[in-house]
């Protein structure tokens, strides 16, 4: 049994962890926690960290002891510098909580790249984890909507850079911009994105600790994550009807199945495909054909097969990327955003000059 640490920082990370906990209960309602047991194959310890207490309060399926509130007003206000300072001040508190949970084989830290607390805490937390422990730590980073604002964009840019410098064993990207295709209002869109990410991660955790017809394990996952540029994404498809496994694999690797927009056949470096479903759907030929097709493009592909009687086929693909054109686009926008913020700051300083002009009126009174 694997010992898995999952930390969610900031509002986005908190909600994804809460969604993972909810789906682990297997129930669709908020009352599932009262009558159901989480169906983790491994020992999974979930921790959420936030400076905004209201974000912690709104969580429904995460235990109280797993919610760590770092008191600082009601958040850091999307200011990563403030967030870093707060983390340093409360680092011992966070690390003691993790320490108390025992030994781990792998860790995942989930965050939004654009927020204040999550984007600033996560790189520093991963750095601390890597310094203290020897288990691999992977970051799952959610990129913002491009139109969400300049502060978020520049935070995402600097966050990803800090993430890379933190020593993380890999960064799995999920892109809100890409996922907004889910439609609906903003809240249901966010919830849908969170649930989608949670479903994939649960599948991954399940696959890492399951007896398979064809085996993939944590070592395979590490090998996959070690490839490429340290960036990865996840593709996923879950059939809700009688679908050939070949189709299921293709859909999982298609843009609609990925968390981050990429052409896997062009940009992927290594891959791991896990197929689950009733054995009547698990055609070895079809699976081999599709894996071979992928491996001929990206190199090595690990595959695992999990037999689940009566279930329609589900496919999860973890893909590391050699390059990410979409990320480059993001950075281009982010740079513009940084410039835009800088210009605004200059304008603000100009207002200070205006203050100097006003100060000439000091000690003077109007005469009529």
């Amino acid at each position, binding site marked *: 049994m694997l010992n898995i640490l999952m930390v969610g920082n900031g509002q986005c990370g908190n909600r994804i962890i809460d969604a993972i906990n909810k789906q682990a209960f297997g129930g669709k309602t908020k009352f599932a*926690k*009262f009558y159901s047991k989480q169906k983790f194959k491994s020992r999974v310890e979930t921790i959420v960290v936030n400076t905004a*207490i209201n974000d*912690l*309060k709104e*969580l*429904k*399926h*995460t*235990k*109280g*002891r797993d*919610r760590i509130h770092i008191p600082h007003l009601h958040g850091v206000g999307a200011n990563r510098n403030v967030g870093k300072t707060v983390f340093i001040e409360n680092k011992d508190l966070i690390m003691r909580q993790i320490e108390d949970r025992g030994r781990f084989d792998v860790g995942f830290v989930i965050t939004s790249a654009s927020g204040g607390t999550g984007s600033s805490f996560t790189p520093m937390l991963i750095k601390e984890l890597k310094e203290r422990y020897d288990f691999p730590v992977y970051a799952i980073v959610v990129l913002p909507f491009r139109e969400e604002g300049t502060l978020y964009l520049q935070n995402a840019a600097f966050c990803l850079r800090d993430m890379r410098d933190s020593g993380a064993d890999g960064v799995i990207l999920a892109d809100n911009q890409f996922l907004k295709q889910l439609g609906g209002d903003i809240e249901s869109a966010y919830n849908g994105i969170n649930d989608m990410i949670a479903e994939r991660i649960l599948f991954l955790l399940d696959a890492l600790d399951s007896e398979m017809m064809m085996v993939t394990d944590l070592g395979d996952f590490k090998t996959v994550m070690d490839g490429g540029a340290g960036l990865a994404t996840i593709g996923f498809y879950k059939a809700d009807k009688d679908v050939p496994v070949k189709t299921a694999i293709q859909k999982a690797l298609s843009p609609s199945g990925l968390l981050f927009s990429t052409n896997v056949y062009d940009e992927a470096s290594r891959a791991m495909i896990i197929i689950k479903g009733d054995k009547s759907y698990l055609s070895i030929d079809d699976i081999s054909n599709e894996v071979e097709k992928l491996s001929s493009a990206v190199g090595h592909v690990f595959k695992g097969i999990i037999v689940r009687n009566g279930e329609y086929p589900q496919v999860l693909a973890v893909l590391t990327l050699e390059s990410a054109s979409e990320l480059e686009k993001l950075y281009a926008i982010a740079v513009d955003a940084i410039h835009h913020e800088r210009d605004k700051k200059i304008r603000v300083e100009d207002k200070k000059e205006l203050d100097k002009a006003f100060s000439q009126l000091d000690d003077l009174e109007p005469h009529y």
Partner: protein
Amino acid sequence: MVKLSRTFLLVVCSIVLLTMLSGSATASVEYFEEEIKIGDGYQINNYVIDVTDVFITDKLAVFKVYENGDGEPIHDEMIGINESFKFDLGNGEVELKLLSVGSGVLNRASVFITVRNVDTYLTGIVNGGHEYATYSGTPILEITTTVDVDTMVIGDFVKVTVNAKNVGDDKAVDVRFFIPPRLEGFSLDDEVLELTVDDVTIEVGNTYRVYVYIYEATNEGSFTFKPTTAIFQNSAEVDFEASSTTPTITVTAPEVQEVPKKNAVLELSTDVDSMIVERNDKITATINVKNTGDAPASAVWINIIIPQGLEYVGGDSAIEIISGVPKIYMGSFGVQQEKEYPYTVKASELGTYTLTTKLAYEYDDGVEAETQKVSNESVTESIYVQKGKYDELLEQPIYVYLLPLMVIVMIAAWIYHRHNQYKFG
């Protein structure tokens, strides 16, 4: 003046002697021989034999007999010498025989008179004949002892009156009464109303009150008064005697007046508000105690007997639980006093029950030295305990209720535990 001659005595003696010699003599006979002048008479008791004529030559004499000197003679006889005649005197007989006639200033006749069976008290020659004789009557005293009551009780008084009435034809003189000694069983009251007993003269027709006594009866029984006697004489100084009536008095013992006994009668009843109840329902019973007697009761104990299947819940503050039994104690309970004691029982089991109330008390009946002890009890009509609305459920084994309850508790505990696990802030 009457004078007996020597000859007459000799004759009498000879007659007595003859009588002695001849054996027994059953009748009295007296003999008188007298020489009586014309115009005189010879008196035997109230009879006078007058000599009205004496004929010397003819040797005849005429005699007339008068009774009480009144009216015509009852006999008019002329007899010769050695002739006689007889006439009755009371129950007896008088025979006169002419012995001889003699001459003188006044002619005289010698007679021999034989008196048979007459109690003579006055005999002799009466000068002047019957008109000058002294006649005497017979005083008869009717002495009556009367009482004002003839039955009485001890302690009562009786008035005893003794009267003497002269119902004879002559006065009674020198009357002496002899009062009998006090009657046994009576005591003589101090007051003596009249008492005159010596030298009394009672005229014909008069009544003389001898005495009046008041006696107090001291003993029960039948008592007959002893007679009061009297001795007296008539005007001729002849002695008489008389005796009174002797009434009888019955004396009874006084009735013992019974002191009526008093009773304390405590009427006990127990009523219930419902005769048909469901299990686990409550029944209110009310004990009513009322003293309808005429004496107060004391040491009153009321025991309430609750049968198995019913359960005492509570009741009046006077009810105490002693050794598991609801009891009421009252030191006293007055006449006409009435009290009610409500209490409540719970019908625990199905069945038919009665509530029994036992009562014990004492009272003083005013007569007996010992207090009277009384006990009784009242029993209610049958109380039917039926199945309750939820009895069917309650009849299931206990685990039927406990298991769901435990499950619910466990679920609640689990939810509470989970709620605490997931609570934040």
